[in-house]
């Protein structure tokens, strides 16, 4: 879904260093796309926002918004954030404590020259859209966490930006509002592009036209929800999607994992560096050493047992961390508890081996 003639809303090559942390991320948002930046804590997601907002000017690279270069160290170009046409919701909300909620939301339109009364009308509209009308006259200091987040979102929406940038926009919201807001976001960003930052995979999969996975300052995978779900490229993404993923080296029917352990695989053609994924459902558990056709068996410790809807997720520890999904019946039968020792088995055919690409 790449735009053709129309300029991209955002085209950014970001190179920022912040203390010891180095960020190297390339991002594009075009047309009416919603791009989701997904990554673990401290991956650099908010740093991307800070770079776009000019709080952390980039050290190298280039930020282009709506066809205009807004930050490019090489040419000493730096456009202040107020002229960048971005609507940003910061992770910490950053509401104006000395104004009412209504004035917070009206601030953007006012700043853009809308007359006072009109700006307040616009603010009231947006608050209404987000179901926060009754908060209008409150002080931000007297809001609950979720209410504050809703107001922060309203404030950013009120300026009708050409690109929306949302840092964890839904984290503090309850489920009902979250669904409403998700719809509102999709409505609002129908006209414009949106860059949404989240660590919540469900949110990412629901909102995203494209997902960009960031880990430790680097992009580790890009693609639509489907592609990311089907072919996780890193252990982090695999964990997100509930898959076990390992890196290793294949040699004729066996794969030696980076940890040292060797597993048998059905695929005898692969060679060299590979990525191995194992569906948690494919991991079977046994009370004693199993007499099974499965080629891979090992004894291990149960680290944790968690209910997961109709299945139960069992986390296994040494010698290699694997997640197994079993039925509640199995848990009862085996009397699974954290700390106990069990035997695990995986059939060679359940190992999906792909050549490592990165």
């Amino acid at each position, binding site marked *: 879904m790449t735009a053709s003639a129309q300029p991209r809303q955002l085209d950014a090559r970001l190179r920022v260093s912040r203390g010891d942390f180095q960020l190297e991320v390339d991002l594009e948002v075009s047309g009416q796309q919603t791009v989701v930046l997904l990554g673990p804590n401290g991956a650099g997601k908010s740093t991307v926002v800070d770079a776009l907002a000019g709080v952390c000017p980039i050290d190298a690279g280039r930020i282009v918004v709506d066809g205009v270069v807004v930050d490019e160290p090489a040419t000493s170009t730096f456009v202040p954030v107020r002229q960048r046409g971005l609507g940003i919701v910061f992770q910490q909300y950053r509401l104006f404590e000395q104004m009412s909620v209504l004035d917070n939301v009206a*601030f*953007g339109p006012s*700043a853009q020259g809308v007359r006072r009364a009109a700006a307040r009308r616009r603010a009231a509209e947006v608050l209404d859209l987000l179901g926060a009308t009754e908060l209008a006259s409150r002080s931000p200091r007297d809001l609950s966490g979720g209410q504050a987040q809703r107001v922060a979102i309203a404030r950013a929406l009120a300026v009708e930006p050409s690109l929306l940038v949302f840092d964890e926009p839904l984290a503090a919201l309850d489920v009902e509002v979250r669904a409403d807001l998700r719809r509102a976001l999709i409505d609002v960003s129908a006209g414009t592009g949106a860059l949404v930052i989240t660590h919540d995979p469900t949110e990412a999969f629901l909102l995203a036209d494209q997902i960009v996975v960031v880990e430790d300052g680097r992009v580790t995978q890009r693609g639509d929800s489907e592609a990311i779900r089907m072919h996780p490229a890193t252990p982090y993404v695999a964990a997100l999607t509930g898959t076990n993923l390992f890196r290793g080296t294949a040699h004729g029917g066996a794969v030696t994992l980076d940890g040292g352990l060797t597993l048998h695989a059905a695929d005898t053609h692969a060679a060299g560096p590979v990525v191995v994924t194992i569906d948690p459902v494919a991991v079977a558990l046994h009370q004693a050493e199993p007499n099974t056709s499965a080629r891979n068996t090992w004894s291990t410790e149960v680290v944790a047992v968690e209910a997961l809807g109709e299945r139960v997720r069992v986390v296994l520890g040494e010698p290699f961390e694997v997640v197994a999904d079993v039925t509640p019946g199995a848990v009862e039968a085996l009397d699974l508890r954290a700390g106990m020792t069990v035997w695990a088995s995986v059939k060679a055919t359940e190992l999906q081996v792909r050549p490592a690409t990165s």
Partner: protein
Amino acid sequence: MTTRRGTEERIPLLLGVLASLAIALVAIPLVGLLVRVPWSNLGSLLTSDVVLDALRLSLISSIAAAALSTVLGVPLAWLLARRRFRGRRVVRAAVTLPMVLPPVVGGAALLFALGRRGVVGEPLDAITGIVLPFSLAGVIVANTFVAMPFLVLTVEGALTNSDRGVEAAAASLGASPLRVFWKVTLPAIAPSLRAGMVLAWARALGEFGATVTFAGNLQGRTQTLPLAVFVSLENDRNAALAMSLVMVAVSFAVLLGLRDRWWNNR
């Protein structure tokens, strides 16, 4: 929210003792002063032309100086706290100098600079005909010179302390730096700004040395209350005490009049 009685922790002993000492240091001399005030013939002492003229001039000049200090000093404080520029430390050090200079020397410096024969004053007179010394304008300039540094340092301290993330948010909504400053930065430091304004006003109200040196001491034109007090100290001590009482009363009235809300807006 009204707090239930008994829900605040007791005041720590150490802090209570030190704070009491601080209050004593301020209160005992004031009591000493009040004891000596000639209460019986206070009325006649205070309704003289000299006192009324001086009171009027004091109020005008101290308020004007506080206003001028705010208008000029807040931007300077912002500049010092928010922008890195060459010579920033020198400017900051220079701004505090009027506090350090003995006021009389400050007045002399003002004369050297803005007096009729002064470096800037002479051309100013020649071009615009404005003569600052020995005029009310001169009193205001002298008061501002000594009072502004207090405002600048107070506001700068508060700005350094304040959350810049909120300013970034305001800018991202399209607000110009001036709008951010006016609508977001200033309201956020309001309590410190108020403290700074009170400091400047009070310093201006009590100012004596620089004023007498730069603007002279003419009743009805440049003689503010402290000058009148000083003159009476020389010959009529009771009158001086009575006038001091006026000053105490005025500032008490103003500071009590500023309702508690004005101070504690949260």
